[in-house]
Every structure is written in C-alpha cells, then in structure tokens.
C-alpha cells in the first residue's frame, strides 16, 4: 500500500517533466529607436565640392564593424554643415533627424576637433534659444590633419557653464552618438 502510494505520487510529481514542448519562435522586436547612420554633409560656401562624413553600422552593436567615411576639406574655407541621422535597419530607412528636431531642447551635438584651426559654430537654436547643432558652420584654416568627434548628448544641462558655447565638460546627460572621423585639411 505504502509503496503503491509513493510510486503513484512519484509519477504525479515527475509528470510535470514529461510535458515537453518546444519554445515558440520569438517575435523579433522592431528596433525603431536604433540609429545606424550619421551623415555630416559639408557644403562649401561660395561653391565647390560637397564633403560628406559618414558613419554607418547597419547591424548595431556587435556583428560587423562600422563603415566610416572620412573626408578632405579645403584650407581657409567656410562650410555649411548639416547632420542627418538614419535608422537604415528599417525599410525604408527611418529619419531620426526629425525625432531630434522635435525634442531639440533635450538634445545637443558637440563638435571637438584636434585641428586647432578648424572651428565649428552652431547655426541653429531650440525654443529656449540654446544651440542644437543639427546645422552648423565649419571654418578651416591652414592645412592640417587630425580628427573630428561628433557627440550627441541626450538631456544635457544646456544652461551649465560653457555648454551653449559647445564645451562638453559640464554637459552631464548621456551619450546617444559619439563618432570620430579623420579629417585632412589641404
């Protein structure tokens, strides 16, 4: 009797284990927030060749390495800079620039170059009169080689000291984009 009871309870207890099934296929999430591509288009003021710096990482973090296109700028020249952000993992590609523009008070781009003669000035403003950086003016000086780092900070402290002037040190917030290009001025 005892043995029978234990045996039947054992079967009951392990029966859970016998209900075997395959895990269903997961639904692949729609990564609409992803930014895959940054294009910085520099149009020379007064005519000349347009330069496009681009950073493209179609498969996001990991996987294949990003494709970085650097550029050569003319010396002593002013350019109108325009930034474009895309999510090319979606088809058709989604324009993230629009999202940034809608939330421009919560975003700011920072431009940092190792070339001392290369200056970048903001040419746009959010509703509070603070810079955003979607459009900018780039001025080159003498021939030089170096890098340009473009950073997009989400929720920066725009009123902190130096931030409106383009200094990132006191910006707080967190980085949404940080890309570095090699630049040749000749």
């Amino acid at each position, binding site marked *: 009797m005892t043995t029978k009871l234990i045996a039947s309870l054992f079967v009951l207890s392990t029966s859970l284990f016998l209900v075997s099934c395959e895990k269903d296929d997961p639904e692949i999430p729609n990564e609409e927030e992803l930014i895959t591509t940054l294009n910085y288009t520099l149009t020379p003021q007064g005519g000349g060749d347009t330069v496009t710096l681009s950073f493209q990482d179609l498969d996001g973090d990991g996987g294949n390495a990003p494709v970085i296109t650097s550029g050569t700028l003319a010396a002593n020249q002013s350019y109108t800079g325009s930034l474009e952000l895309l999510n090319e993992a979606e088809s058709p590609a989604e324009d993230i620039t629009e999202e940034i523009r809608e939330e421009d008070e919560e975003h700011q781009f920072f431009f940092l170059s190792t070339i001392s003669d290369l200056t970048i000035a903001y040419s746009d403003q959010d509703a509070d009169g603070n810079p955003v950086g979607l459009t900018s003016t780039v001025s080159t000086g003498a021939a030089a080689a170096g890098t340009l780092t473009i950073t997009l900070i989400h929720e920066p402290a725009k009123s902190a000291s130096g931030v409106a002037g383009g200094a990132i040190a006191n910006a707080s917030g967190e980085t949404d*984009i940080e890309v570095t290009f090699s630049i040749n001025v000749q």
Partner: protein
Amino acid sequence: MFNSKVVFVIAFIFIGFNSNSQDCTLSIKGQVFDEAPNTPLSYVNIFIQELVTGTSTDEDGNFIFNDICPGHYHLSFSHIGCEGQRIHLELTVDTTLSVLMSHTPTSIGHVVIEGQRDDLIAQPNVTVSRQAIEDNANQNLAHLLENEAGVSLLKNGSGISKPIVHGLYGNRLTILNNGIAQSGQQWGNDHSPEIDPFAADKIKVLKGASAIEFGGGNLGSVILVEPKRIENEPHLHGQVNYIYETNGRGHHLNSRLEKYTPSLAWRINGTLKKSGDRKAANYFLNNTGIEEASVAVQLERSFKEKLFLEVYGSSFNTRLGILRGSHIGNLTDLERALASDTPFFTEDNFSYDIDAPKQQVSHYLAKVKSKYFFNDEHFLELVVAGQLNNRKEFDVRRSGRTDIPTLSLAQYTFDSSLKYTINFDNHWNLKLGNQNIVTDNTNNPETGILPLIPDYISWKSGLFSTLSKELDKTHFNIGLRYDYEHQNVVTISKGVPKEIIRFTNQFHNLSSLLAAKFDVTNTQSISLNTGYAMRNPAINELYSSGLHQGVSGIEEGDVNLQTESALKNTLEYKWLPNTDFSISALLYHQQFKNYIFLNPQEEYRLTIRGAFPVFNYEQTDANIYGLDISTQFTIKNSFFALLRYSYLKGKDTKNNIPLIFMPPNSFYGSIVYRIKKPISFSQNIKIEETEIEVNNRLVLEQNNILASQDFLAPPPTYNLTGVKISSNFIFSKYKIRCFVKADNLFNIRYRDYLNRQRYFADDVGLSVTVGVNFKF
C-alpha cells in the same frame, strides 16, 4: 508530531482528574529547562496576560501560579538571551508544564545560533530571528543579513541588493522562499530577490559545503526564508508594525493576522512601503524612491494527525527608482561621471517621484504542501508550486519611448517535489527525494530592443538521498544528489537580416556531502564538512548578448561553456563555556574548476554611440577561502558585547590574479546595555527588555584586486556607527515594542566596493528610524 524542527517543546502533563470547573482553585505549575545542556533555567519571567500577573522561576527552574479560575490563558516566557515564547492554555484541571527554552548565550543582537534538532545540525549556519525581521521591516531581504559573518551585499544603489554568502551570489546561491527555490532573473547583479521578509519568521543562511536537499544549482550556500507553522491557538492574534525612516522619508507598514481553528488555521501578512529620494552625506540621490505592496496568505489544516496540508500564496510588487545620474551612455560618459564631484542630474529637492531609469517587478507564488504521516517515524511530503516573475526595466529614451520598457521578461516556473523521510534504529534518519522544475522564460517584444537574454524553456529534475545518524556526541550526515537539466533556447542573431537560431542543451550534475559534528566536551564542538557540487552554465552565461545598461558594458555569452564544479571544505569550532561567553569560528575553502565569470576584454567595441567595454563570459580555475568569527560575551552585569569578523580571499588560480567582486574583509561589533529586570509601572503595564545598543561596522578597503580589473580603484576603508534604543511595553492583552535608531550616525561620506553605483555617487548618509510594533 509534525514539528520536525523542534526549537521549543512544551509537554503537557495533566495531574488530577477533578474538573471542578467553577472553583477558582486551579494551579499552573512547571519547570523550565535550558534546551542545549538540558538543565533547569532560573530567572525566567512568566506572565499570565489575562490575569496581569507574573512570577519567575526559582533556582531549580520551578514556578507556580495558584488560585486560578478555569478558562483560556496566554502565558509568556521570557529570559535574557532567549527569544520570548508564548503558550496558550485552556485550563480545566491543575496543570503542570515542562517548558524547554532554546537558550543560548549567543542571542545578543537578536541572532540565535540554534542548536537544531534536524539533520542540518552538522552544517554551519546563522539565523535571523523574527524580532530582527520586525525591527528591520523597512529593509529588503538582503539587508537583514548584512551584519552576519560571511554574508555581504551586492548593491545597486540603496534600494536594490542581493546577498553574497562566502563570495557566491546570483546563479550560485539558492534562495528558498517557504521551501520553494525563488525563481526570476536571479542572474542580474542589479536584481533584488522579490521576497517580503516580513512574511518570514526566520531567515537562515546555511554556509555548509553542499545543500543536497535543495535544488537550484547551488554550490554550497542556501538562504532559507521560512514562515513558521501557525500556532495551535484558538484566538485571533496579530500585529501591526510601522516604521518611519528620515532618510528617504519612508513609510513602512506591515501587518499580520492569524488564527487557528481545528478546521482551518490561517495567517495573512501584508506590507506597504513608500520612500523617496535617499540622501548621501552631502546631496540627494535623485530618483532612488521605492514603492512596494505585497501580501501573503498561509492556510493550514491537519486531518486526524495523519495528513497535514499547507496552502501558501504570495504576491510581491515593487517599483524601484535607480539613481538618474548612474544612467550613462558610453565609456566617455563614464569617464565624465567619474570626474564629477556630484552625480549628474543631482537636484536640491527631495521627491517621492520614481522616473526612468527604474525597475518594476511583480512576483507571484502559489504553493501546496502535503505531508502524510504513516507514523511518527515515517512520512511523505509532496509539494507543488507555481511562480510568475514579471520584470520590466525602464531607461531614459528618445521620443516618448521612456514609458516603453527596455527589458521586459515574464518567467513562469513550476515546481514539484516528493520527499520520503524515515527515522529508524535509534537516531538514524534517511531521506529520499525527487524535485522537478520547469522554467519558461519569454521576452516581450514591446521593448523595441534585441533582448539581452533569450527566450527559453528548461526542465530540471533531481534525485537525492541523505542519511544522518545522531549518536551521543557525534552527528553524521552524508548525501548524494543527481540533477538533469534540459534547455531549449531560442536566440535572435545580431546580423542583418535577423535570424532565429535554436539551441538544445543537456547537462548532468552530481553533488555530494559528507558532514560531521563532534561534541568534544559539553561546551565545545567541531563540525567538518566536505562537499562537491556541479553547476551547469546558466542561460545568461551561455547566450547573453548586448548592452547591459548601468555597467555600460557589452556582455557576450559563450555557447561553449562547460559545467563548473566546486569542492568546498569547512571547519567550524564552537565553544559555549557558560552564559557569559561564546565563540564560533568557521574556516572554509572552495576550489572551483571551470569557474564562470565575466572577463573584461582588452579591446573596446566601436559603435555609433562611442566605445564600449566588452565583457565575455569565460572560464578559469579559482579558489575562495575565508574565515568567519563570531563571539559574544558579558562585559559586566548588564553590558554585553558582540563581535564578528569576516575574512575572504578569491583567486583566479589559472591566471594568478584576484577574482573581481569579492567582498572586502569586515568587522561588526555592538555593545548592548540591557535592563534585566522588568519595570512595573502599575498593575497593568510593565516595561521589559529595554536595551541601548551602540554598533559599529568597519569595512576594509578591498586590496585584493588589480587596477586593470576595474574602471575605478576600490573605495577606501569606511566605518559606520549606529545607535539603537528599544523597549517593550507589556499590557494585559497586548504588547507594544518601540525603538528608535540612527544609522551612519556621523553622516560619513563613503562608497562601498560592492555597490555598483560607487562609480557615480556616495552611499547613504545619516538616517534615523522610528518603529512601533503592536502585538495582540
């Protein structure tokens, strides 16, 4: 007969047959014994609540109450160094009681190192008492264990923490909530166990070499969170506990109600918590509020002393804010944060608001346990349980997506277990058991982010047997366990286009234990444990893939990981010469083969958001060894002292470097002044067990780490001081306990090595807590 863990035994011996029910001439008398040496216990205070009268035991432990009318009475027993006990009595005849109190001199600080009567006796352990649980009901489970030797906390800010025992946590540590292995996303270093400690009557940490009876892939240590059985007591009893904490302005309300009737015994526990931004020494820690609501229901019934049934259900719901300034983008942000004096986003104002980043977790448990007694020595236990863990984590996101979780996981777990116990041939005890666990883990695609850990189902089944023998001076315990795990995993590839890749894994694990305890003399004992255990790689170790926010690192699992194994040896020495002194020292060593850990890689990974450090799950050989010392003594008359010391060292023996995230060495000490004699104000009110305590926790700098193993050097040594004053007011029908305490009394600025937010902010500053507990 159902009580296998007898801590407190009451035997009723009825003398006299004359039930002269209307005469108030009955007597209650008896004798109280100390459980450990089994000698009479003098100066035990005994109080009959209904009559508001009390007495104490004499030299021989005897007491007597005369001229009592028939009726229902509640007797409370209290003694220095014992937890207070209460007995209900329906008096119809002259009654003699024989009372056994679990008296050890080691209860200062409210932790009783128990002389247990079950087969775990040969394994080292520490227990947190109900009193400590009530006084710290504003804390989470892990915090209750913080001051125990050999236990430390892995924290993520002030509100999220998980216990570390002898250097092991997460996947390597099993937490049993009411006998059921807590399921959920235990792998996450920033995930607290979802348990309301107020529902428990004791929390026990087993620090032995292997816990054969408990499944869950543990490599030695187990934390048992246990409600006790409902007392055989026909009146409604309950308590309300309220705690206010100045730091965070937190309100914490707990209540418990219970009643026994022959047809059904029931108990309900409820907890509500709300607190806001905590404050470090010099600034607010913005967005560190906590909200919690939980309830637990326990039902018990026994059928003709043959079958015992318990139904337990609990719901735990919490929202936890995470310091806003700790949410960063990439490595450059981390460097900026490290250079900043105060965390980013620090505000001057206090707030109860909980915004992103935050965690929102619900955990539900339902359990049915039945125990069938063939006879006193021979019983069978069947447990069936289900759990649902729902975890959502929110980060700061663009374009209104902050309200969409970045991690959303639902995990269902079903447990069943069958255990057969037989006592035979004078103190032999044999247990045979089977446990089965099915876990079904699913990501909700609402996140719009590729999941960090994949969807999976795992089936786990184990068989175990333990045999113990209790001789006069020696206890033996041997055990063997086999576990089989089958994992069915569905991952999503990283490439373009995304593909679904399936994996199937099978693992076989063995564990074994050899434990012995020798009573060298009446007051000294030595315990020896040797245990071997295997743990197969967990899902996160095999398949993690992606950014782990908060550490701002990319974590990559490795599908080729092998099962890790560990051999743990412990040696414990206890000496309890008299009620004025006791000491216990526990030495342990654990040797790992194929130890799985997150190894920081030399190269950073370039993404559009900048560079990220990469951590890969890798394997190595390692060892962890340490020493826990606990001592308690009477300084003079009413002054008592307690000292604890924990030492631990972890080493990667293959690469000859330290293991990261190992607890630093620490001291804990307290001095208690206790007013021994109850103070009677009037016939109806009495003040008992008034205590003034000064405590101190010293955590040394973790020197056992290389600079290249972390972003930031370990923080320096810190020392925290606290004071606490507590008292119990005894009325005829109820009891009120009040306490006031201050933690981090000197508002010290400090950071803790095991707090993951030490990169960003100081730890919590001064906090004053006031608590009132009403029991009836």
